């Protein structure tokens, strides 16, 4: 979904850049609450993880393979604000060092994947959690999976809307929506399933690392020993 330079016209690129800047600005101030002063190193390494996860190819069948986009996965693992920062940095590095995604389209790409992708997934995740009213950890991977599935066609829809506004050639909009959303629903299935499994495997080992599953931990009184053998 990485939009290159020249794909959308200049006004649309500018407008999305403003939206992206505002979103990232807000995320910068809010992410502190999710990770306190550990934001920079942790978000940096989570960004590396998102980048590496995008390299993990999973077979879709018929000889083709897909890869994770990772927006919802990151939001469930480290919180949506930090996830927005991580995706922003991943997209910036891809544009500046890998020539993947345009430089004037960076705002568009951040808006689509870092804002819409992350927050659509997070919104679905939190509303489902409220709906299910589950207090246990068991439901979290499934909810994350559904949210990740939903986020992909939503981001594709946003992409189509942007194209409708700022595309350089008129394409029948209905058909474009149908093609994009249809195709991305399929990709979303893979994204959702892998997110479900990945969150599940992390919850099985380190539930405390899953932002979307923070549970209460009880403090205990300290014990003082005077002998090496308890």
């Amino acid at each position, binding site marked *: 979904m990485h939009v290159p330079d020249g794909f959308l016209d200049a006004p649309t690129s500018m407008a999305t850049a403003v939206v992206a800047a505002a979103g990232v600005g807000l995320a910068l101030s809010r992410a502190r609450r999710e990770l306190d002063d550990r934001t920079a*190193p942790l978000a940096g390494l989570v960004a590396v993880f998102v980048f590496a996860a995008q390299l993990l190819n999973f077979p879709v069948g018929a000889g083709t393979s897909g890869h994770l986009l990772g927006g919802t996965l990151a939001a469930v693992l480290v919180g949506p604000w930090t996830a927005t920062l991580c995706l922003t940095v991943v997209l910036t590095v891809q544009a500046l060092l890998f020539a993947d995604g345009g430089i004037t389209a960076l705002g568009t790409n951040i808006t689509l994947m870092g804002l819409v992708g992350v927050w659509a997934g997070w919104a679905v995740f939190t509303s489902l959690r409220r709906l299910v009213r589950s207090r246990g950890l068991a439901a979290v991977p499934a909810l994350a999976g559904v949210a990740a599935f939903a986020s992909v066609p939503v981001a594709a829809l946003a992409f189509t809307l942007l194209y409708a506004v700022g595309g350089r050639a008129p394409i029948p909009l209905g058909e474009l929506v149908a093609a994009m959303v249809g195709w991305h629903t399929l990709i979303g299935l893979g994204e959702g399933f892998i997110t479900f499994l990945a969150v599940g495997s992390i919850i099985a080992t380190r539930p*405390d690392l899953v932002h979307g599953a923070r549970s209460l*931990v*009880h*403090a*205990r009184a*300290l*014990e*003082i*020993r*005077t*002998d*090496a*053998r*308890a």
Partner: protein
Amino acid sequence: MTTPVLDVRGLAFAYPDGHQALFGVDLHVHRGERVALLGPNGAGKTTLVLHLNGILEAGAGSVSVSGMPVVRENHLEVRRRVGIVFQDPDDQLFMPTVRDDVAFGPANLGLRGEALEARIAKALEAVAMGEFADRAPHHLSFGQRRRVAIASVLAMEPEILVLDEPSSNLDPTSRRELGELIQSLDVTVLMVTHDLPFALQLCERSVILSDGVVAADGPTRAILDDVGLLRAHRLELPWGFTG
């Protein structure tokens, strides 16, 4: 008696998940000493180290460095005085070049310009890595990265150097060279290790930490000769060692 460089009294600590790692540790290190902190995996060695510069806050008891209590207001000064070299150099070398990494600590203390350059040069000189200043850490060998990690801490001119498992993962020659390097440094050293021959070679005094308390404290030779003591704390000299 002079004020100890490191003064740990009745230190106890539990992690937020409820796991208690330290149960009242007493430890004093004086200027110029080289002390080995021995103990099996899970004895609380790393937890203790993270208290020495206030990364973890004591649940009970206290830590002082040259008389200065390790509390939040003193953090910057305490972190200058206590230099910790972590086990994995990749955790410690996070900057793009060796020079930037060595500069990081002193720059946080406010050094700039020539004073900073001089610090960097001196620290890299001490670990014999001067010619690698402009290299990226990931292009160095593991042994070289560990030397740079030590330089990055020496550049803060600490009063005590704390080394976490300095000999781990080194090939035999690198291990010997590192031992010679540590002996050549004119600084108080606390060395966390389970490499007992390395401890015997470098440290006159050893402390055994086991189950979160100090189980023994004395001359390294005497401690390593006490087979019963070692065995009780899952320690032993390697096969064939008769140093």
